[in-house]
């Protein structure tokens, strides 16, 4: 009988924090500057420079720890991780090994199998490295330190997950918590959330864990799911052949759906960690914790309940809207400006999701403002534009965040409410479509639809179809 295997998975998740400045200096963290323009003596490792902790980094790290039920370390320290690589200007990375800021937490995840807890071993703060760029033309390597010193937290889970589904549920949960805190946008593709998967397999019922491997270069949830499947099969294959799994770091190639070994445990470096003498230990007071606890935002579960009672939205809408902090903020801000909740939700559920899918974008990428969405809803509510025009305007607003009022005005898209102008067009349409008029009078109700369409066409869409319908019926007696 074939053996049955269980997959055991733990994750190391790096999250780039959304601070304006770097973790140990005042340089900007903004993305995309010219190489080495967001740098100073500190983040380029110049002699004599010294690090000073950015308090906002601590605040975000503690907030994430509180939201994931961690114990906050009251006396925490930074340690140096020593290794030579040119993207690391000091040749040591300032991180935390001995006294990380958060320990022993958990998050609850929901899967088809029900809800369960995934333990968090620790969360620590550290600095990001620079970026090496190989110049093929000159055959040399250049280094850009703009990213050097950008703050990261690393969230290390317990080996508590057993399937890709649980992994994705855990990551979704973490991502939402961090997004709700405003601590990061957590985009896998852009690298503001990076996931390393530690995986081993063992026979069902076995007490000992198997030998694990660490998988890197996972840039999407899909890649993570595929890599888990691939690595599980690879390890089971080895065991079935009587071979041993080697403890090593592997790199996932999502295009080829395969992985290859980067380095084994034998090559593991001795990082010679020791407390960084340039940084004083961080003491965390009860008052500080209280302040951060009080400032914790409404997380998804609470939000979902409130949306049901306060806005009376359908469960489906609530699920989608609260699934993105950005969308939830947009929704609430638009409602706060006076729009009816269900109308706002309809625009989000309908056109917004359609266009996001079409453009292969994420909810976090929505660019239009609540003010403009509110204005568009007001325009349709007042029947200043009809629904077809509204969809057109929305599409422009979705892409360029235009002011719908001004856009409608400039493009002359307002519904013609001038009764006499409309009446003239309707009379022309009746006159030039005798067959349809005949059909209608013979009881073919549908024929009026064609006449409405013709009128709308003649009015270049700028009429209220219900009004046209009413006028046609009146004129056709």
């Amino acid at each position, binding site marked *: 009988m074939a053996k049955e295997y269980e997959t055991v998975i733990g994750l190391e998740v790096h999250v780039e924090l959304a601070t304006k400045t770097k973790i140990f200096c005042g340089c900007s963290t903004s993305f995309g500057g010219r190489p080495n323009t967001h740098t100073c003596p500190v983040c380029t490792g*110049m002699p004599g420079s010294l690090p000073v902790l950015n308090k906002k980094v601590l605040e975000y790290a503690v907030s994430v720890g509180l939201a994931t039920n961690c114990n906050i370390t009251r006396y925490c320290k930074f340690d140096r991780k020593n290794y030579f690589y040119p993207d690391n200007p000091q040749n040591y990375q300032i991180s935390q090994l001995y006294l990380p800021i958060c320990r022993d937490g958990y998050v609850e995840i929901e899967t088809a199998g029900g809800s369960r807890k995934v333990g968090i071993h620790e969360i620590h703060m550290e600095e990001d490295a620079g970026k090496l760029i190989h110049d093929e033309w000159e055959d040399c390597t250049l280094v850009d330190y703009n990213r050097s010193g950008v703050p990261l937290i690393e969230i290390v889970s317990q080996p508590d997950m057993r399937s890709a589904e649980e992994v994705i549920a855990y990551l979704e949960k973490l991502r939402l918590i961090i997004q709700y805190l405003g601590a990061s946008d957590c985009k896998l593709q852009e690298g503001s959330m990076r996931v390393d998967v530690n995986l081993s397999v063992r026979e069902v019922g076995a007490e000992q864990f198997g030998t694990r491997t660490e998988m890197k270069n996972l840039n999407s949830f899909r890649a993570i799911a595929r890599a888990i499947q691939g690595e599980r099969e690879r390890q089971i294959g080895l065991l079935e052949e009587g071979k041993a799994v080697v403890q090593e770091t592997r790199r996932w190639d999502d295009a080829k759906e395969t992985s290859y070994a980067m380095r084994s445990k034998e090559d593991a470096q*001795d990082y010679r960690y020791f407390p960084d003498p340039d940084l*004083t230990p961080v003491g965390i007071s009860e008052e500080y914790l209280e302040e951060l606890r009080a400032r914790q935002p409404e997380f998804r579960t609470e939000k979902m309940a409130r949306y049901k009672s306060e806005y009376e939205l359908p469960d489906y809408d609530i699920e989608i809207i609260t699934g993105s902090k950005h969308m939830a903020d947009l929704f609430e801000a638009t409602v706060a400006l006076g729009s009816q909740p269900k109308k706002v939700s309809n625009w989000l559920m309908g056109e917004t999701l359609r266009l996001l899918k079409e453009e292969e974008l994420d909810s976090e990428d929505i660019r239009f403002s609540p003010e403009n969405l509110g204005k568009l809803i007001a325009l349709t509510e007042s029947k200043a534009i009809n629904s077809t025009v509204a969809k057109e305007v929305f599409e422009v607003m979705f892409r360029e965040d235009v002011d719908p009022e001004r856009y409608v005005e400039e493009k002359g898209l307002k519904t013609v409410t001038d009764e006499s102008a409309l009446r003239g067009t309707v009379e022309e349409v009746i006159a030039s479509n005798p067959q349809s008029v005949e059909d209608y009078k013979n009881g073919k109700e549908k024929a009026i639809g064609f006449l409405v369409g013709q009128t709308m066409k003649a009015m270049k869409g700028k009429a209220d179809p219900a009004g046209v319908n009413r006028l046609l019926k009146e004129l056709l007696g």
Partner: protein
Amino acid sequence: MEKEHLLSLSATALGAAIKAGKTTAVEAMEAVFGRIGEREDINHCYITVDKDAALEKAAKIQKRIEAGELTGPLAGVPVAVKDNLCTEGMLTTCASRILENFVPTYSAEAVINLEKAGAVLIGKTNMDEFAMGSTTETSYYGATRNPHAPEHVPGGSSGGSAAAVASGECFFALGSDTGGSIRQPASYCGIVGMKPTYGTVSRYGLVAYGSSLDQIGPLAKTVEDCAAVLEAIASHDEKDSTSVRREDTDFTSGLINDVKGMRIGIPGDYFGEGLDPEVREAVLQAAELLKAQGAVVEEFDLSLVEYAIPTYYTIAAAEASSNLERFDGIKYGYRAEDAEGLHQMYKKTRSGGFGPEVKRRIMLGSFVLSSGYYDAYYLKALKVKAMMKKAFDRAFEKYDLILGPVAPTTAPKLGESLSDPMKMYLGDIYTISANLAGLPGISVPCGRDGKGLPIGLQLMGDCFQEKKLIRAAYTFEQSRGEGEK
């Protein structure tokens, strides 16, 4: 003003003379360069001097003094700065080949503070490479000689600064002290050197050796000069997390010629084996002198002194091994040519860029931090360090100050120490405790040995008690008389 007389002035006396219009900043700078011209070939105090820039700066400062904009005691006074302190636009080598072409784009906070006080930079002084050594012989740019006896070392690692002050090649200097690197060369060169409480002077811009032990301090002709310079350079700096916010940095207010009732402890463990009898005699006589001035002097047992050296060399080397990793040939400084690939480039650059003493400490430090040895060495050293601090805390419950020698001997001859590193390390025994405990310490001349080499008296105080140190050192200096210097 007559040149020899001008050069004999202390820094604060010169500052007063400039303010009184008896001389000018330019005249003082020209006198310094005259002296450099006469003595530098033998002494080799400097790695870099920039005469044109110095004279130009002196002229500008002179105008500001005359305009009444600069009124401090150091305005217009020429200063030399140790070459491990970054100076914007001026070569900063740490006496190492690996920084042979490094010109910082920023100045150390202490240097900026001196500039604000109106002191004028002459140049950068020689030192042991990366401040690792006690003789200024490990410099890539050649050894400095002791102005009192050219066949002897000036001490180290701030040997260039100490020799420049002693020979009149500057009026005062900045040094750094990780294990005695200000106090010991001050002692060997017959001048005053002071290491303040850890955190008093910002370390920003000081190229780190042992970050938890490094402090910048003055080397000067008199206690008064030391107090004035320390007052100028001490500041709370937000760029240095270990910088302390102090309200009591008016150090010159400690210049009081009176030690009546002051309790001074002499650790018996500082007078045991290895201490040169002439040094012992001079230091005990200094204690007698303070007693005669009304101080209460008694012997006590400090304990743990025998652990100071292994503890110090474990911690300092560990921190140094990491601090010096950034010197890799990638971003600045020396890079080995003809290397194939990254790893060979690292190896060739660091093998060729660092001298043997630096390599020895990097290897020692890497070893004590390595996996499996960390607990046994580094962590244990930190525990001993904490115990030593407690021993000092107990001592300072009973005493205002602790008195002892600075070094076991007077300045050795050139070449004697390099052949025996262990002997050189043991020479730090009386100074490193102050660094391990973060305490302030001062070295004041207290006589000479049979060969005419200066002997230094060390006073140590509790953290933030620099004024007591200054008071006792000043009283000693005033009652000692010139003959004892």
